[in-house]
Structure formats: structure tokens, C-alpha cells
């Protein structure tokens, strides 16, 4: 067909949108990442440890530690957002038919930050103290093998998350060596301010780029981390350009939106829940537990108290991890709660004597949530009293029977996660969760059994919120929750992305994608 100029123009206009461009940045090719610059990160956690051997399962502080540890250490494998395991320090892996023995071939040419070579022996020495009881690791010249007395079909999920980093201990107080894209260059503990010695200057950690990293030097020259800055000051610092990355507590996300800040959010990563302890014997009464469970208004906690920045939680594992959380549900039922309470002797805890609740000190949010639990309990004719933080445990008022705590999901394996929670609960019913099955029906049954004891009452699940400067590029977060700072670069151009909200998850179209 012969094309006239006018027909060609008509056709082309039907294919695409014609518009006027601001072409100041036009370079005739795809814009390349820029090397250089220092990323300033501010976290409100006051201190953390880069030694994975010190991290406790479910600990919120350990989650912050893991995030920074991923700058200096690496894993055998990682999981990408498309459900594929990717080679990191291991280039190949295989297992026997029973999935009890797993062999990993170690990548050659990888160096620690002191330029010494990574060996299979290093990998075995690092992972052995981190592996669960019963699992052992042996090394040969260029590979390691993890042996387990039971099948571990989800070993890759296990190794791709949590504390399973490879490092080399140098002995004494010397920091651990890693092979990661950054090197810990300097640590400054909190120090008294010159102006006002009663005020502590926050701790700082400085990381510099690892020029010899096997996957290529990171784009950033370094990452400066300030710990312990109050959240409101962090927000101000982000606004005035004194920080590029800050963590934002859920109760300040709304403010961040109002300030038109760029906010990234993850799927729910932290569960806030109640645990019945044995400090008050009557908390072992199933009717009391059920009464409190039925009195809790999780929806209001999430939507009003947390201003829709949290999700009501009715399961131990989140939907994004198990895929079946929606099958659990326990609607609030005050009438039934009152009935159950009425059936209890008047002098049990929660009646004449209040149910004493201790609250983990994770900011004002936990205290507010504790107060909301007490209000809900009162609506069900139950008396719950918050213990002052100093009196937690066995204070002058007596031991606590209820514990409001935060649990961070730190494993990509639902089985491992449930096992760790069961261990935390020390629940008899949880013992059966320690099985080798990754079968969802079995996992569901185990979780249902744990929930059925009502020793733990889930309340709300919180995402992680991160405030980002507009010039931060390539921001992405692994399914394990680690920030991929090696790929981040700072755009110095005027065309930096505008501020705005990006929320919903850490994968693909979710999260911040300016």
C-alpha cells in the first residue's frame, strides 16, 4: 500500500499519544544509573547488632539489624519477587530424594572485605551456629552440605531469610567480616552532646562501597546510618534534605502523607498480639481467654487507632505468607463475651482482680494499643490493667497474666515461622507444629490448633513504612524484607521523581516505583 505523508501521520497518531515533552534531560538513550554519593538513612531503633548469632526469632530489633546486615553479609541464595531462588554465594544446589541432605556449590572468586577468599569452610563455620537444632553442615573443597534428621523441603526459603548470613568471625570484639556490597567502615556509639551533656547524640554507622564485590561495585559510595533519632525529627530531616531514607512508625504515616512525602510500604511484617502468661493462674481458664478474644475490636484498632495503616489480624501467619489467613475469623461478640464472663467465678483475674497486662516498650503505639485492649475488655465486663513498664514482670502489683508484644515475621517459610511462634508460646499444642510437612493443610491445622488454645490473640498486623527522598532511584525490597541498597542510586538531576505515595507491598507494581 502506498502511504502518503498525511496517511502516515494519521496512522502514527492512532498508534501513540502525541504530546509535548519537557526534553531537558534528553540524552538520546536510556538514562543510566549514576555512581557516587552517600545515602543517609535514619532509623528510630536506638541500637542494633550486626552479629546474626545474637538475633532472636521474631524480634523487631533483629529485623532492623537484618536490614543493615544485608549491606555487609550475603546469603547462599535469595528469593526474588517472582518466586525464583537466585544464586548468591551458592551457584548450584541439589538435594536427595528425601530432602534431608542439601548440597550447595560455593561461588568461586568471592572475597571478604579484608580481601581474603571465601571458602566452603567459612560458609560452614558461619551457618552452623545459626541452623536449628539437629541440622548440621559439613564442607568439602568447594561445596557445603546441610544434613537434617527430617525432611526440609523448604530449606531454601529458610536460608533466603532471617539470620542465615555468611560471615567470618575474627575473634574477640572485632566485627564480623562479610562479602557484601558494602563494608562497615565506622561505628560511633551514642555520645553526650557538647551543647547539652544530658542529651545523647545518636549512634552512627558508616558503610563504604565494596569496590571488589563479585557482582560489581554498588552505585553508592557509602551509606551513613543514624540510629535513635525521634520519628518526628526524621520526618523533618527528610523534608529539609538531611536524610534520604527514614523509617516511619504507622501512627505517623498519615502525617507523612499530609506533608506530601514519598512513602513506601511493605505487606504486613509485624504482628501485635496478646499472650496469656502464667503469672495469674486464672488466665489458664479457656472461658476467660475466649471472653477476652470475643471482646476485642480489631477492626477499630486498625482503622481508628492506627488510622488504616494496619490490618486487623485474626491469624498467626499473614495472608502473604500462608495464603490461607482469610479462612480464620473471629468476629467480635460482646454478648457472648459477657455470657462467658458471667459464667466465671467473680474473683478470677479479669473480675474482682484485674488482669495485669505488661506491654513491650516499642513506642507509644503499643501503649495506646494496650489502652484500647483494656477498653474493649471493660466492654465485655473484664478488667484489664496496664502495668507500668518498670513494673513489668513481677512488680509491686504482682506478676502479669497478659503480655502485649510485637512479633516480626522473619522467615519466608511458613512452617519455620509457625514453629518459631509455637516455641515462643511454649504451647503444648504447638509441639505438633514442629513437623517436617510443608503441606498447607497440615500447616493450617497446626495454626488452627495454636489459635484454638487462645494462648495468643492476634490483634493487628503492621506493614513497614519507609520515607524516601525524591532523588532515590532503584528502591526495592526483597521478599525477605531486606533493602536492596546495592542497586540504589541517587539522581542528582532536576528531573527527580515527584513525591507521592506508593504502597501495598514489596513486589512488582507495589511499593515505591517512581
Amino acid at each position, binding site marked *: 500500500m502506498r502511504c502518503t505523508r498525511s496517511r502516515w501521520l494519521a496512522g502514527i497518531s492512532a*498508534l501513540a499519544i502525541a504530546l509535548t515533552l519537557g*526534553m531537558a534531560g534528553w540524552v*538520546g538513550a536510556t538514562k543510566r544509573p549514576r555512581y557516587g554519593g552517600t545515602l543517609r538513612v535514619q532509623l528510630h531503633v536506638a541500637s542494633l547488632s550486626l552479629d546474626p548469632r545474637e538475633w532472636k526469632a521474631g524480634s523487631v530489633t533483629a529485623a532492623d539489624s537484618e536490614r543493615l546486615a544485608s549491606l555487609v553479609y550475603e546469603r547462599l541464595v535469595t528469593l526474588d519477587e517472582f518466586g525464583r531462588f537466585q544464586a548468591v554465594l551458592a551457584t548450584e544446589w*541439589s538435594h536427595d530424594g528425601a530432602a534431608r541432605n542439601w548440597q550447595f556449590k560455593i561461588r568461586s572468586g568471592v572475597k571478604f572485605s579484608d580481601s581474603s577468599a571465601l571458602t566452603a569452610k567459612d560458609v560452614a563455620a558461619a551457618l552452623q551456629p545459626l541452623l536449628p537444632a539437629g541440622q548440621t553442615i559439613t564442607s568439602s573443597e568447594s561445596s557445603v552440605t546441610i544434613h537434617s534428621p527430617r525432611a526440609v523441603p523448604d530449606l531454601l526459603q529458610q536460608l533466603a531469610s532471617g539470620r542465615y548470613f555468611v560471615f567470618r568471625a575474627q575473634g574477640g570484639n572485632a566485627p564480623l567480616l562479610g562479602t557484601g556490597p558494602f563494608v562497615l567502615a565506622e561505628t560511633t556509639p551514642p555520645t553526650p552532646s557538647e551543647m547539652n551533656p544530658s542529651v545523647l547524640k545518636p549512634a552512627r554507622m558508616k558503610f563504604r562501597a565494596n569496590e571488589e564485590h563479585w557482582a560489581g561495585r554498588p552505585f553508592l559510595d557509602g551509606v551513613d546510618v543514624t540510629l535513635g533519632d525521634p520519628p518526628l525529627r526524621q520526618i523533618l530531616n527528610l523534608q529539609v534534605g538531611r536524610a534520604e531514607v527514614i523509617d516511619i512508625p504507622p501512627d505517623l504515616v498519615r502525617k507523612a502523607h499530609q506533608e506530601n512525602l514519598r512513602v513506601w510500604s511493605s505487606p504486613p511484617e509485624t504482628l501485635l498480639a496478646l499472650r496469656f502468661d502464667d503469672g495469674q493462674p486464672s488466665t489458664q481458664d479457656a472461658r476467660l481467654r475466649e471472653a477476652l478474644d470475643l471482646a476485642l475490636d480489631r477492626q477499630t484498632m486498625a482503622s481508628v487507632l492506627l488510622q488504616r495503616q494496619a490490618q486487623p489480624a485474626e491469624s498467626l501467619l499473614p*495472608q*502473604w505468607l500462608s*495464603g490461607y489467613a482469610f479462612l480464620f475469623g473471629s468476629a467480635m461478640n460482646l454478648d457472648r463475651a459477657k455470657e462467658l464472663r458471667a459464667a466465671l467465678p467473680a474473683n478470677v483475674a479479669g473480675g474482682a482482680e484485674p488482669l495485669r497486662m505488661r506491654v513491650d516498650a516499642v513506642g507509644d503505639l503499643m501503649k495506646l494499643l494496650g489502652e484500647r485492649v483494656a477498653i474493649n475488655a471493660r466492654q465485655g465486663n473484664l478488667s484489664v490493667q496496664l502495668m507500668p513498664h518498670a513494673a513489668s514482670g513481677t512488680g509491686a502489683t504482682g506478676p502479669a497474666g497478659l503480655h502485649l508484644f510485637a512479633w516480626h515475621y522473619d522467615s*519466608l517459610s511458613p512452617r519455620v515461622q509457625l514453629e518459631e511462634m509455637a516455641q515462643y508460646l511454649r504451647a503444648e499444642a504447638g509441639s505438633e507444629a514442629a513437623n517436617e510437612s510443608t503441606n498447607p493443610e497440615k500447616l493450617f491445622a497446626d495454626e488452627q490448633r495454636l489459635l484454638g488454645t487462645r494462648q495468643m490473640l492476634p490483634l493487628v498486623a503492621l506493614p513497614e513504612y519507609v520515607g524516601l527522598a525524591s532523588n532515590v*532511584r*532503584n528502591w526495592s525490597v526483597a521478599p525477605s524484607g531486606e533493602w536492596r541498597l546495592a542497586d540504589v542510586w541517587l539522581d542528582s538531576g532536576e528531573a527527580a521523581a515527584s513525591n507521592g505515595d506508593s504502597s501495598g507491598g514489596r513486589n512488582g507494581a507495589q511499593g515505591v516505583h517512581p
Partner: protein
Amino acid sequence: MISSAQNAVRRNLDCPPLVVLSLFILLLFATSGTSGQSVNSGGSPTTLDEAVQQLADRVAGIPNLRGPLRVQYFQEAPFAAETGKDWEESFRKGLEKSRLAVTDDAGANLLRVGLAETPTEVVLSAGIRLNEKEEVRFVTVTRTAFALPNAAVSPVRVEQQLVYQSTERILDAVFATDDAGAGLVILADRAAGLAVARVDGAGEVKQTVSLAGAGARASRDNDGELAVHANDVEAVIGGKACHFTWAAGQDVACHSVKVVRRGATVVKPRCGDGSWKLAGEGSDWFSPDLLQVVPDGSARKGSTALLSDFPGPIVSVSAGGEPNADSALVVTRNLRTGNYEVYKVTLACGN
């Protein structure tokens, strides 16, 4: 049993190209309504459609379950956008095939059915309360185990044609100009190191030459460029230029060079007399990109441009080697599947 990095992914360079998972899922559902194929409920499903059928079968097998049932579906919003609502219809048909009627009657037994994506699996679940007991059934499919369609290359489209894709990182692609005729040459970063591969017009890898042995290493910034002249290939990456010929196979020689990046990619439509420049607009690896097509030589500010959507960031744009130069190759990373995709972009005339 091997589960290495190479096998953990769906395809590698040596495999035929793929079509994106979402398109695949939609295609599956497009045919599911008319399929008379029986489903082996004992086998592991490899498609979402099979998984839905299996779940329906498993629900139908719950002892003492009788219809009609009121079905409530649950699906995370982002995943829902990929699958649409067809799976719900497919599930309903599966139940009805087992003589379990579905109703909207609020008094009927409530069956809750969910489709969720976890970090490693797609989980289908169904739960119903029967005689004070919760009956729950699951079917799971490993996300990487979804079967792939045979039709790997999309039908010809006017301006964009998917010509190749891989789970491995593709840094650049250029048209092949060797004796073998139509096809392309790609520069890829594999687990075993850098490699250049020759791909034929059907998307089949015909020859792979590793650059790892010659000391070439990829950098973090996706920066690598190919140039082909008949049977000679040059790959410039990480400050090195590596040369080889297809005939000489693995005989690769690399030497340090001062990197001079490829200039603007310019194409000429077969009609009209103007030339157009192509370039990616984005600057982030985690957001879809737009390909800008602007008249060559026009004023930069205020130029009229055509924009073309891509499913991820644009890694490279090249028209090198194309004899007619009305087309270019664009490498992008699909943000839904994680695959690297190569598109042939042609400036079409008329409709």
C-alpha cells in the same frame, strides 16, 4: 533431584522464548470453559486452571457436603488484576460438574474460596463449616512450576513484537547480520558468567559463546553493548571489548578499551522521509518505561513525541545491523514475570 539455580528458574538461554505469565493465565481461562479434558486430581497441577479444577474436585469430595452452596471468593487486589474473575467461574463450573449447585441464597452453607500468591507458591484454598467442624482443602502450585505455552513469540503487531525472552539478565540485543539470515544476537549475564548468544527468527538459541573465560565481567549497571558485522561480534562491557567470530566458536579475545557508548538509535520508516530517534525515558529499574520516539534533529524542548509502553524498565535500545533500519530492538525487564524481554519495534505506516 536437582534444584540448582539453573533449574529453579523456568527457562534459560537455551530454551525457547516465553510469553508472560499473566498472558498465559488469561489464555488458559479463555479455553477453560470449553475444555472437556478430565483432570487427574492426584497429580500436581502445572497451570492455574488445573489447580482450580483440582480444588473443585477436592471440595466435592468433602464427606457429607451437599449443595446448594453460597460461595465467597477472596483474592488479594494486586494478584486479582493478573487473573481476573475467570477462575471463579471456572471453579463454579467445577462444582456444578460434581452436582454441587451454587446459589446466592444467604441461608445456604457458606464456602469460602481464596486465591493467593505467597513468596513461592500460588495457593488455592476452600473452607466450609460442616457439623461444627471446619473442613478445609488446599491446592498449591509452585510459582515457578507453571507450564509455559508453546506459542512463544507473539503475533506480529504493528509497532511492538516480542521476539525473545529469558529468565537471565539480557544486557543488549542487536539484529543478526550473519549468513544465517534473520535473527538476533543477545548479550546475557548468566549464573556462569557473560555470554553472547545467536537466536534465530523462531526464538531458538543456535549458538552460545561464553565471555567469562576471557575475563569479561558484567557490572551492576546493566551497561553492555554488542556490535555485529557479518560474522564478527564485538561485546563491550565493563571497560573491555571482546571479539570473536561465530565460526571460531569459543576463541574470544578481550582487551581494555575506553568505552564509547552507542549513539542515539535512529530509525527511518519505510514511508515518509524523516528519521526518528528512540530512547527510554525512565531512570528506575522498578517502574515500567516509555519508549520515546522523537523526530531526529528536532528541537529538544517542545518536540512532538510518540510514546510506547513497555512492561518494565528499558535496558537497551539498538538498531545496529538492521539492513532496513525501520526497526530497532528494545530490551526490557518485565516487572510482572521478572523475565528479560526483547521487542522488535517498528515504525509502522498508516493503520
